[in-house]
């Protein structure tokens, strides 16, 4: 199972895309495509898990090491869960949504394995373009389109800056293989190249100085599309970020200071801005900025442990926030809409409590172990004061996450709401997220072991 066999998971996803695009010719209703997509994504995830790690393909352009394996499996699993939910509760044109989602998943899976600048750029673009369309999914709502446009233009601007940086990186080092970068002799030009390259990645992960698109785009888009865009690609994005950082950090130490600056800015700005939000989507946008900050704090630590912690944290963030966004899609976008939710759907609200607790970092959930390994790496790299900032901002995060809990338990339902149509698939999808948050917390050991420390 070497050589092209390694690409089987990607091929499965591609089959999913084909099924969704051309399903009109095949039997089965609109929803069939989504379910088929979900099934194929799940099988792809299983295929990845089965694969041995450590193979390189296309002459080193793609490396399926253990970190890539972790990210590919993670992304595939997340999109499978999302597709399952969309099959049940998606509002219209689910076939298009499935196709777009699977395209993005394919892009993300390739991104996490890309070790060559060219494949990296291709994979990044493949992952983000469907995202633009997903964000502007409801064509008739102007806000949706406005959000998508802002996302598109800012994202395009930053990715062009990144490509400009990458071009210089290629120019200075003479190769596009990330492993071979040696910037020691490159002087200021090399550093500028690295900086410009990272601007794009900062924007993709919605890190602080470049996060402006996130709140508006999240608020404009449909909550269920935001669920996918804000979580599944982020795991792969983290791997790409870490891989590029690993390749240049050795010879250009200033890059870790830049990452550190961005990390602290994201943590502080993300958490504080989220504090007074009344729209849960904007709150989750800023919380995304904050969690990217934590993730980059570990990566700035520049060590095998730091990189592994960053990737693990990306996943530990993605799982609960996917679940939360799906719940937001079901319950309503404002914090007030959650009022009295406990009396309506106790099980779902308990799920929300578990996921929010994980985002805060309350043990024994996956979020806690994410933060634990993250702080361990950061402290090891001597970032004690920044860890204190991270710790304080996570207490602040407890304040705004708890507002959702408070509303759902003790708020009086404002308007009489039509009870949500019960749907097995929808609840199963959310239940999977909650289950994963709990199980991966208790089983953090084997998961960390499986993730390994491929990126040095």
């Amino acid at each position, binding site marked *: 199972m070497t050589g092209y066999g390694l690409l089987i998971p990607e091929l499965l996803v591609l089959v999913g895309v084909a099924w969704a695009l051309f399903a009109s010719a095949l039997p089965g209703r609109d929803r069939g495509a989504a379910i088929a997509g979900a099934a194929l994504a799940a099988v792809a995830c299983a295929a990845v898990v089965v694969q041995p790690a450590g193979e390189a393909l296309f002459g080193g352009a793609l490396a399926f090491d253990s970190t890539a394996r972790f990210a590919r499996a993670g992304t595939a699993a997340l999109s499978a869960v999302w597709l399952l939910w969309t099959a049940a509760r998606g509002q219209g044109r689910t076939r298009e949504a499935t196709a777009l989602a699977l395209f993005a998943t394919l892009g993300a899976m390739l991104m996490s394995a890309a070790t060559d600048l060219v494949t990296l750029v291709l994979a990044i673009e493949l992952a983000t373009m469907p995202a633009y369309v997903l964000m502007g999914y409801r064509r008739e709502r102007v806000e949706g389109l406005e959000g998508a446009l802002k996302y598109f233009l800012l994202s395009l601007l930053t990715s062009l800056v990144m490509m400009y940086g990458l071009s210089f990186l290629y120019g200075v080092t003479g190769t596009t293989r990330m492993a071979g970068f040696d910037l020691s002799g490159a002087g200021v030009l090399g550093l500028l190249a690295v900086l410009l390259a990272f601007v794009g990645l900062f924007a993709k992960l919605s890190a602080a100085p470049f996060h402006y698109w996130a709140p508006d785009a999240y608020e404009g888009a449909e909550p269920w599309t935001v669920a996918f865009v804000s979580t599944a690609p982020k795991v792969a994005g983290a791997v790409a970020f870490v891989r590029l950082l690993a390749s240049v950090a050795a010879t250009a130490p200033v890059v870790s200071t830049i990452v550190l600056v961005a990390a602290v800015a994201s943590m502080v700005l993300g958490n504080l801005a989220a504090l007074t939000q009344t729209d849960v989507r904007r709150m989750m946008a800023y919380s995304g900025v904050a969690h990217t900050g934590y993730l980059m704090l570990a990566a700035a630590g520049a060590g095998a442990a730091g990189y592994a912690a960053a990737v693990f944290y990306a996943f530990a963030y993605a799982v609960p926030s996917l679940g939360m966004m799906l719940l937001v899609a079901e319950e309503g976008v404002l914090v007030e809409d959650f009022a009295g939710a406990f009396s309506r759907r106790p099980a779902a609200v308990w799920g929300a409590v578990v996921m929010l607790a994980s985002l805060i970092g309350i043990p024994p959930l996956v979020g806690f172990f994410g933060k634990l390994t993250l*702080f*361990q790496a950061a402290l090891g790299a001597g970032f004690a004061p920044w860890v204190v900032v991270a710790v304080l901002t996570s207490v602040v995060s407890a304040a705004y996450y*708890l507002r959702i809990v408070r509303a759902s338990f003790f708020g009086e339902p404002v308007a009489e709401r039509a009870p949500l149509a019960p749907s097995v698939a929808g609840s199963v999808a959310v239940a999977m997220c909650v289950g994963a948050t709990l199980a991966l917390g208790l089983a953090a*050991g084997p998961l*960390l072991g499986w993730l390994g420390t491929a990126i040095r």
Partner: protein
Amino acid sequence: MLSWIVFLPLVGVLLCAVLPKSQAHLAKWIALATTAADLVLAGIMIASFDAASAAMQFVTDVDWVPQAGIRYALGVDGMSAPLVALSALLTMLAVLASWKVDKKPAFYFAMLLLLQVGMNGVFAALDFVLFYVFWELVLVPMYFLIAQWGGPRREYAAIKFFLYTLLGSVFMLIGIIALRLQLGTFSLTELAGLGAKLPSEVQWWLFAAFFLGFAVKVPVFPLHTWLPDAHVEAPTAGSVLLAGVLLKMGTYGFLRVSLPVLPEGFASWQFAIAVIAVFSIVYGAAVSFAQTDVKKLVAYSSVSHMGFAMLGIASGTAAGLNGAMAVNISHGLTTGMLFLMIGMVYDRTHTRQIADLSGLANQVPVIAGLMAFASFASMGLPGLSGFVGEFLSLLGAWQSTGVAAWLVIVGVLGVLFGAAYMLWMLQRVVMGQPSHIVADQPDANLREIVTVAPLVALIVVIGLNWDALLRFTDPAMTALAKLVGG
């Protein structure tokens, strides 16, 4: 065995969760059964505990997250065994005291049992991360207990409690990780000896981080403002467990972590802690003297009593440390009982304002008698358990080189002020003519008396025969005193 004691209540939680809406009233029986079973197990553990040895007993030690070096390790020694037993006992009594809860009972008792998992876990954990997991776990059920069944300002009190403790504990998390990086292990038993190797500068900072984490829980003077709100707004069972067990996690943290692992850090902080402790004693007593709500009075009295425990810890001598442990256990019993009595009065009169209550002795003599008994026990009357802790803490502080003698004399004043506010409360609430609210109220029923009986028995037994408690704590505390050089 210990894993059973810690995780048995979890079975109860699951049972309560799965209860259909119609049988929600069964929840209290499930809760009673689980807590009773847990108490029996704790009883067996205490009975078969070999008091002579200071080593860890009933140890289970297995890998949990090998990559991060985290182990699932449980064990008890002379210090934690009585605390686990106290937690098991008080939770059962709390269940008994909440027999009449009718608002979402399944949810209520599930939270109570989840709280017990956290409490038992903290005292039994030997791995620092496992300790931290249970430490944080306690926050969630307590938050819901206060926020769902509390008094008028419950939501504010609940979130204040949650964020206050979370702030403290995240600093503790940094400490835990720093220790792991410096000394290479999370295991509390191994850490105990290794800490001395650290440079005193590092020990100073680590002690500060742990101090913040534990002091919030004790609580100690500047960090105590969450306690009165949480107590006043919490339901009776919540207050009993909050005062009876949760506060002890703070002092237990000092005894299990700060002192053995960072002796030099402790030496440099010793005088500061002593000053804060004594100030808490006097300040807590003074503030509670002026309270109009009897529950808030008892809450501030907890600040004062735990001040004695902190003084005992600050002394670093065997007597002082034993005193701290004695205050932990006896405060759990006496304040637990006081809150149960206040709960009984509240069930009848639906008010806690001292001004509205008077003349309990004539109308409800049994409740009045028990309340007076609990007050005298908490005042530190010799012959009852309150005196053991206060006397040994002050004695230890007097002997200790790190604590100045005048500080002890101010601490002794705390004993006087303690008597003042308790008697002042007794005089207005228990004595005098029955007020119109108190008139024609029924006296304590069998369930209420059974709830309080074990506490009365333990208070008298420990009061008369100090060895009932010191038999357990002395070996561990003497070893600790030697480690700290007290």
